[in-house]
């Protein structure tokens, strides 16, 4: 590693991803990064496969959701003295090549978050029309509620410095964590940049991804979270 980042950790939340997590971890390891996979109470061999592929594995005793798993991975990596963290999806739609670009972005002084964007200049492959409409609606909502001029939301590829990671604390266990991170970035006042990333949609990742009905659940989660301490 060059520059001020010496110990970056890649955080992967995985739930029943045994068919894919091995190749994802291998790809990250080949790129030269330490990776922690949070096995979110999977009923298949996700944790074992990730371990064999070279990941550090933290296992939730019960399934809690992607947001909870990411926060566990972040906490664990910080305890292992990570000075930068990258969140990465377990379904194989992200490229390990994007990690270097994200880390380079947070190497800049004063930048604590680098958010991957599918819509900057990246050529995202096989994005279905329904998914594009759903993401546009989510983007409009995020811009309106956070005031952040982002071009993409609910993108799992993002990097943060240790200071940035300590400034956020995810309490949305499920999919609403992606919006919650943006809310917390806005509240923290820390600076962010967007980095163009390429997402490769496959039949596997689309089957695992969010649906229109999930958008309603995300809205309810975000609203309900504001009602209690």
């Amino acid at each position, binding site marked *: 590693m060059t520059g001020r980042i010496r110990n970056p950790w890649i955080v992967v939340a995985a739930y029943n991803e045994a068919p894919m997590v091995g190749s994802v971890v291998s790809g990250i390891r080949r790129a030269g990064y330490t990776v922690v996979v949070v096995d979110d109470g999977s009923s298949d061999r996700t944790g074992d496969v990730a371990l064999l592929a070279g990941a550090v594995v*933290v296992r939730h005793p*019960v399934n809690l959701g992607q947001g909870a798993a990411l926060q566990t991975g972040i906490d*664990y990596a910080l305890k292992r003295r990570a000075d930068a963290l990258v969140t990465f999806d377990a379904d194989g739609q992200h490229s390990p090549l994007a990690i270097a670009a994200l880390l380079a972005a947070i190497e800049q002084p004063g930048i604590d978050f680098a958010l991957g964007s599918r819509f900057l200049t990246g050529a995202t492959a096989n994005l279905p029309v329904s998914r594009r409409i759903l993401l546009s609606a989510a983007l409009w909502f995020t811009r309106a509620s956070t005031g952040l001029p982002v071009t993409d939301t609910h993108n799992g590829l993002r990097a943060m410095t240790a200071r940035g990671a300590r400034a956020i604390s995810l309490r949305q266990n499920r999919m609403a964590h992606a919006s919650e991170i943006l809310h917390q970035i806005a509240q923290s006042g820390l600076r962010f940049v967007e980095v163009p990333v390429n997402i490769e949609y496959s039949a596997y990742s689309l089957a695992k991804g969010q649906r229109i009905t999930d958008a309603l659940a995300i809205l309810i989660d975000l609203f309900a979270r504001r*009602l209690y301490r």
Partner: protein
Amino acid sequence: MIAQLLLTAFLALVLVYAWLEHRTVPIIGPLASSAAIAGLYFVWVPEHATTLAAFVGIGRGSDLIVYTWVVISLLIMLNLHLKLRLQLDMITRLARAVAIDRAKESRREAGQPRKRRPVMLGRKAEAPPIELQAKK
């Protein structure tokens, strides 16, 4: 009169409940208190309930009181829902602590050198070597 006293007792309980809950779920306190106070007012001044009911198009004052009670019930349901979420927060924190502790423990175990089997001094071999058997 008996119905009025019973409703007053129930609504007073709702007020106490709202007071107890306002710390953990701030929205429930003022909403449930308002609904309970409105209910108490209409129980003891039913003619105003009838006037207001006619104004908002419900018809009878007693119906308005029933509707107020339905609102209170929905608020209590909302409160229970939010409390379940609060419990889930605690379970998440607990599960996270367990997961991280176990990972640390397995890392510590993996880092330790393997214990060698203790040598059993003075113990005879269970089966003699094949060559010795052949000599017999």
